[in-house]
Structure formats: C-alpha cells, structure tokens
C-alpha cells in the first residue's frame, strides 16, 4: 500500500480558519518515518491546532492530510478510530483521567482495545511504567503527581498500544531541569528503540534542536523555513534567525502594535 520511503504524514495545501482568522493558509509538511520532526513557532501560531488536524479532531477548510497513506478527513469514524489506535498523543496537560489511578490510566487503552487477559495487561502496564521510571507510582492518583510525573504517565499511556507515531504537544514547557533532561532522553530512546515516528510541537528552541532530526518553523499560517537543526540555527533568513536565537528585534516585533509610549504616558 505505502512504501517505506513515503512520508508517514503528508500535509498539502492545508488551510484552516477560526472565524475570519487564517490559522493555516497553504501549509505543506512531510514527516519522515522513523524520525523526530519538530514543528516550531511562537505561541498562538496554531501548533496545537495542527496536531488536532493531523489526528482528525478538527477538519480543515482546505488541503489534505495523509497519515500512512490514508486521507484522515475522508475516513469513516470507525476507520479513523482504528487509525488513532496507532497514533499516540501526549497532551500539554497530560490529560490523565483524574478519577482513576496511574495504573488504571495506563491500562485504559489496553483494556479498551487489546482484548488481553488482566494478568497480561498488568505486565504490559508495568513495562510501560518502568520505561518512564514510574513503576513505583502506580497506585497514586493523578492529583498526587507533579506536572513532570503526570506527563511521563501520559507518555506511558500514549505508548501502551505500541503506536507507529507519537505527537508531543509542548513536552518541555513547565518542566524542571531534571525532568526535562529525563524527558528529552526518553523521547529519543523511545523513537530509536521502537522505530517510532515522532512529531514534537514546541517553542523551546534549545531542547528541540537538541533532539530533532528535522525542523519546520511556522508563523502567520505558513511554513517560513525548514531544514535540519544545524542549518536552522545558522540560518541567514531574518525570521528564522530571530526565532531560533531568541532575539527581541527582527521581523517579528516584540511589541504589540501601539501608539507611541510618550503619548500613553503623557496623553490625556
């Protein structure tokens, strides 16, 4: 059906509007199999929206998104759900079910879809929790976890069904340096160990360049640059340079459009 050299996710001419506002206006992105692809851009550019479009939770006004050769937005509900079993997603908040324990959260997708005996499910859950270093936390409730731990539990849940791809929404935001390091290693290890395809959406330049194989930068509804991390860091394109090196001055203004400061301070 699809060859191994075809990209796993192929986005062509994507257009998506919120009301009048164009979030995406003609975006083309390829996600190579087995790689870690980062999609970067300032807050509010629509990175989370892009992940929701790829997973079929939102429907675009134009363009196509193919995942593993299937046009996501033309699938029946049943086929979409079948495909989602093979896509993991790590939400920004973790999105754990708050009324059941860590163990039950990780077991949930297995109980829903794997049709395995309970003893087998238990073993799988232990392995997944071990992979994120939280086997000992299995009986805790999500409210007892720190933000970093919750995200690792969510990661264990996302890989419970051994998906072909994982989408990470801002995995590095709000992590302390230790859990940050752990997470970066974990994402890399998961990707390399199980021939996973990873999509990371982030605005944290440093961590992302450290881990990504390929980077897309989006702004104002368009892909403004893409390439391997090294090339991006040393890019001569003014916008890319400003974003990747975190400068306040450049084509993207730090200030929201406003009248002169004197006018606001001294004016009536």
């Amino acid at each position: 059906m699809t060859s191994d050299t075809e990209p796993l996710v192929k986005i062509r001419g994507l257009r998506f509007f919120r009301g009048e506002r164009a979030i995406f206006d003609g975006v083309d992105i390829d996600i190579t199999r087995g790689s870690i692809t980062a999609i970067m851009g300032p807050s509010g550019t629509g990175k989370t929206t892009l992940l929701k479009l790829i997973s079929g939770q939102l429907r675009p006004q134009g363009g196509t998104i193919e995942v593993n050769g299937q046009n996501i937005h033309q699938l029946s509900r049943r086929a979409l759900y079948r495909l989602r079993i093979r896509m993991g997603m790590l939400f920004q908040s973790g999105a754990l079910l708050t009324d059941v324990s860590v163990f039950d959260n990780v077991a949930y997708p297995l109980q829903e879809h794997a049709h395995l005996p309970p003893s087998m499910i238990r073993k799988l859950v232990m392995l997944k929790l071990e992979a994120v270093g939280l086997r000992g936390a299995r009986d805790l409730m999500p409210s007892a976890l720190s933000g970093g731990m919750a995200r690792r539990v969510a990661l264990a849940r996302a890989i419970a069904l051994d998906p072909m791809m994982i989408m990470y929404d801002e995995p590095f935001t709000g992590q302390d340096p230790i859990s940050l390091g752990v997470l970066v290693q974990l994402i890399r290890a998961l990707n390399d160990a199980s021939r996973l395809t990873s999509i990371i959406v982030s605005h944290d330049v440093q961590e992302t360049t450290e881990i990504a194989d390929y980077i897309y930068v989006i702004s104002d509804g368009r892909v403004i640059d893409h390439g391997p991390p090294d090339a991006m860091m040393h890019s001569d394109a003014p916008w890319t340079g400003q974003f990747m090196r975190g400068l306040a001055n450049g084509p993207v203004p730090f200030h929201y459009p406003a009248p002169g400061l004197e006018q606001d301070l001294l004016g009536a």
Partner: protein
Amino acid sequence: MLEQLARLGRVGISILAHIGRGNILLFHILGGIGDIVVRPRLLIQQLYSVGVLSMLIISVSGTFVGMVLALQGYYTLSQFGAEQSLGVVVAASLVRELGPVVAALLFAGRAGSALTAEIGLMKATEQLSGLEMMAVDPIRRILTPRFLAGVISMPLLAALFSALGIMGGYFVGVGLLGVDDGAFWSQMQSKIDLHEDIYNGVIKSFVFGWICSWIALFQGYDAVPTSEGVSRATTRTVVHSSLAVLGIDFILTALMFGG
C-alpha cells in the same frame, strides 16, 4: 435600524445553532445506549453519583415540604370543616405537582450542576480529547451513562420526595394537629387515582429527568474550556433547567389535567 435587525438576526441564529448542537449531542448520546448493555458497570457508577447521592437532599426537602403542606392545608380546610381530607390534599399536591417539580429543581441544583462542572472540567483538562485520541468515543463512554442515570433516577427521586412528604404531612397533621389517623389514610386511598395522579406524576418526572440531564450534559460539553467558562456553564445549567422544568410543567399539567 438595519443594525439592530442584523443584531437580532445574529442572536436568533446563535440560539438556533445552540439548539441544533444540543440536539445533535442528544442523538449522539442516545446512540451510545447499546454500549451500556455491554458495560453495565458504567451506568451503575453513575446511578450512584447522580441518584443515590441526591437522596439526602431530596428526603430532607420532601419531609419539610410535606410538613408545610399539612400546616397550610389544615388551616384552609378547617375553614370549611374539611380537616379530615388533609391526607388527600397533601398527597395530591405532592404526587401530581410538588414531587416531580421540586425534586427536579433540587436535582438540577445538586446533580445537574455537578454533571456540568465535571464534563466541563474534563473538557478543559483535555480529558475528552485524550479519550478521542485513545479511540474511545467520549460521548458514548462518558455522557451516555450519565444521561441514562439521570433519566432513571429522576422518577425514583420524585417518588421518594412524595413518600417522605406524605410522612411529613402525616406527622404534622395527625401527630400535631389532631386529624383522625384513619381518615387521613382512607381518604387518601380512595381519592388518589393510579392513572390520573400517579402515572401522570411519573411521566412528568421522567420528562424532567430527561430535560435536566440533557441540559446539564450539553452545557458541560459545550462549555468554553476555561475555569470561567465552566463556572458560567454551571450557572446556566441551573437557570435553564429550572426555567425549563417550570415551563414544561405548565404545559404538561394543562395537557394532563386541563381537559
């Protein structure tokens, strides 16, 4: 002038869109009933949190309402020398009217607001999206059992309300005001009609359970996913449910007893 017409039109369209989304959600919820047969545990958990946990407030309120009815009824009836009919007055008011209506209002405040807050928070914390991504339909898995639990609990809660109301009325009427014990019960027994009074009351509370659960779940599911959005949605649930219950009660009463 044109400006105002356009604004009116926009408001009208947004109300219609709201109702449309509500109906789509209801169909989707009803579509999940088959799943409940496979997983009855989901329903049982919700019967507990929606129904059983509402029993205390329903019982206490029912008792007090029955006691007040007996007091008020006694003074009115005694002016016509008809104190012995107190049992009928208390029972008829409760079974036909106050049981279903007040129980529904309490249900909207106790269980409805909790449902809205729960679903709204699940939306705000991305738990609903999380289920979607695990290829689990959150409407069928989360909303359908809550809806069914509401529809099943409401008539039972209304019956509990009426039963305890009658006990309260008995305590005040017979115990404190000296109405004849035998007359209280025998008049009630002969005058309360199974079809006319009891069935109609059950139909009412079934309709109210349907409406209150539907409003609560829709408001939660449609809430703006922020803490402010959820708190507004919770308020809307109580306001809309109360108005809907009172309005529909008038229509149902006119249809049932008006002719």
